[in-house]
């Protein structure tokens, strides 16, 4: 407070006397310059602390407590549970741990498939749309529609399409193409995994498309011209110039897609409701259910912390591997 006040005063005085300005202005000016970046960061910092960091620390504390609905009013009073919540979560022979492990494995499989497909489709579409042709602008706009749609509007349309009796998917597969003996259930049972994957890819690939498209614009045209002079064909140009140039973009893109998909709550929640079918029981919904449906917040918090640790380790290893690969590739 005291450091900024004189600086403010000087600012207002400064136009009056140019002669005396220089000696008086120097010291507060420097203080101001040092203080200014922090002042600019302050709102962002306070909000991040309030909404992300403090709750995260609180969540960690809660994971060591026996926190049920009786203690919600005054959670500090809940008895300490030591490592009990963690023991329950990772005891894979008991029902709670077993269910968590299964949910985790399903999430891993789902994430790998979804991110892989999103990346593949997005990259292919971006490369195919790189050179101008008739209708390119229209396609580009159209391809961004799934990403622009609000999640619930998009997913609820898929819910309608996946309906057993009146949905489009069964109508096409069973009635029109005759591929199945009888109409299938898509939102319960094993098929729900496929349904979730389709919706997730439909919704997610345009983001990859968008980022890769932006990345392509940073590749200098001269590189292609030089390669063309060397006699490299279209496919070779894509393999030798386009894909390697996209490496740094892909490094970030794949990581972001991975984190978003792994933590995705909105898609399964709108698709299946509060309790997801076993085959599509993603970890975020699983933990939500453990906390808010069975009212066991301590265990829910412990599971969240475990999830966070897993994501931290994966991100760390990923960044280490990809940046090392990049360095050696450069040499």
């Amino acid at each position, binding site marked *: 407070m005291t450091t900024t006040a004189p600086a403010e005063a000087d600012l207002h005085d400064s136009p009056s006397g140019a002669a005396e300005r220089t000696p008086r202005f120097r010291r507060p000016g420097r203080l101001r310059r040092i203080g200014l970046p922090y002042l600019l960061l302050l709102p962002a910092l306070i909000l991040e602390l309030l909404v992300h960091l403090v709750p995260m620390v609180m969540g960690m504390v809660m994971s060591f407590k026996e926190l049920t609905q009786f203690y919600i009013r005054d959670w500090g009073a809940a008895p300490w549970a030591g490592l009990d919540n963690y023991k329950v979560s990772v005891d894979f022979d008991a029902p709670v741990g077993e269910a968590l492990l299964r949910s985790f494995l399903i999430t891993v499989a789902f994430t790998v498939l979804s991110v892989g497909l999103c990346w593949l489709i997005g990259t292919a579409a971006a490369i195919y749309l790189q050179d101008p042709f008739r209708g390119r602008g229209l396609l580009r706009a159209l391809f961004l529609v799934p990403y622009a749609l609000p999640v619930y509007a998009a997913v609820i349309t898929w819910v309608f399409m996946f309906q057993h009796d009146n949905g489009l998917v069964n109508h096409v597969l069973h009635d029109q193409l005759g591929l199945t003996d009888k109409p299938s259930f898509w939102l319960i049972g094993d098929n729900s995994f496929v349904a979730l994957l389709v919706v997730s890819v439909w919704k997610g690939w345009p983001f990859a498309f968008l980022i890769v498209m932006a990345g392509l*614009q940073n590749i200098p045209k001269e590189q292609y011209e030089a390669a063309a002079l060397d006699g490299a064909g279209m496919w070779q140009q894509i393999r030798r110039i386009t894909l390697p140039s996209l490496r740094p973009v892909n490094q970030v893109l794949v990581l972001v897609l991975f984190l978003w998909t792994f933590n995705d709550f909105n898609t399964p929640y709108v698709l299946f409701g509060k309790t997801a079918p076993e085959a599509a029981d993603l970890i975020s919904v699983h933990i939500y259910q453990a906390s808010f449906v069975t009212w066991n917040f301590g265990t829910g918090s412990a599971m*969240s912390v475990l999830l966070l640790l897993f994501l931290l380790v994966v991100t760390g290893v990923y960044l280490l591997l990809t940046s090392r690969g990049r360095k050696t590739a450069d040499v």
Partner: protein
Amino acid sequence: MSSTSQAPRSPMAPPRSFFWSRRIFLTLLTGFVLVPVYVMVSSSLKPLADVTGKFRWLPSELTIRPYIDIWSTIPLARYFVNSLIVAGAATVCSVVIAVFAAYAVSRYDFRGKRVFTVTVLSTQMLPGILFLLPLFLIYVNIGNATGIALFGSRGGLILTYLTFSLPFSIWMLIGYFDSVPRDLDEAALVDGCGPLGALFRVVVPAAIPGIVAVAVYAFMTAWGEVLFASVMTNDTTRTLAVGLQGYSTLNNVYWNQIMAASLVVSVPVVAGFLLLQRYLVAGLTAGAVK
């Protein structure tokens, strides 16, 4: 330079395989993208009998009834206004705060700069589920202690949403501001603008595409969020993301109305997004992707 000397060879024509594979791929992808959009539009114009019986590609008769009924089946207008207020306010606040923070990181050297950027970005990693309950408790406690109602109010939701888009916005704007030549704002400083004057008169106008991109992103994030909206709103503050579920909790599932309502709530964001996508790509090119 050299390309002009060998004019016939330089724009090498892509092989046939490129064209037919492009045609097949883009056709399939267009179908995949369009089918749900078609279902949404066509079903919203169908009478109820068409959507409760077997699926039909074409409506038995075209009706705009669903578009009239959606407003009375649930208080859609109220949810709409709530969503507009929440997403609008979150966007404005998020963009302003991100501009300040990104300007500081882009133009100043200070202790803790790296820690700040890394911390902010790593919040993207946090599972929403980890801080949902603590945040809920913090809001309730702030409410009890100060009388500022955050839980159940639009304010609490605005606060939450604006921090969701903040990390990505700051990150993207840092890249964008870095691409605005420093000479420009230094000239403004010499001309007697303060640092904030330089920011708003020089840097911000030069970075408009990036700022628009960030605003679009922030608005979409807030407009579509479900998890926090489902826990932190009540009847009067409910947003569209949660409110739309009202069409299917009744005895009959009014699919035609659900599709009509989905379309109505999508049009503002999709239209805005498509109008501004040029900026988004430009913003990403200059900022995040570099």
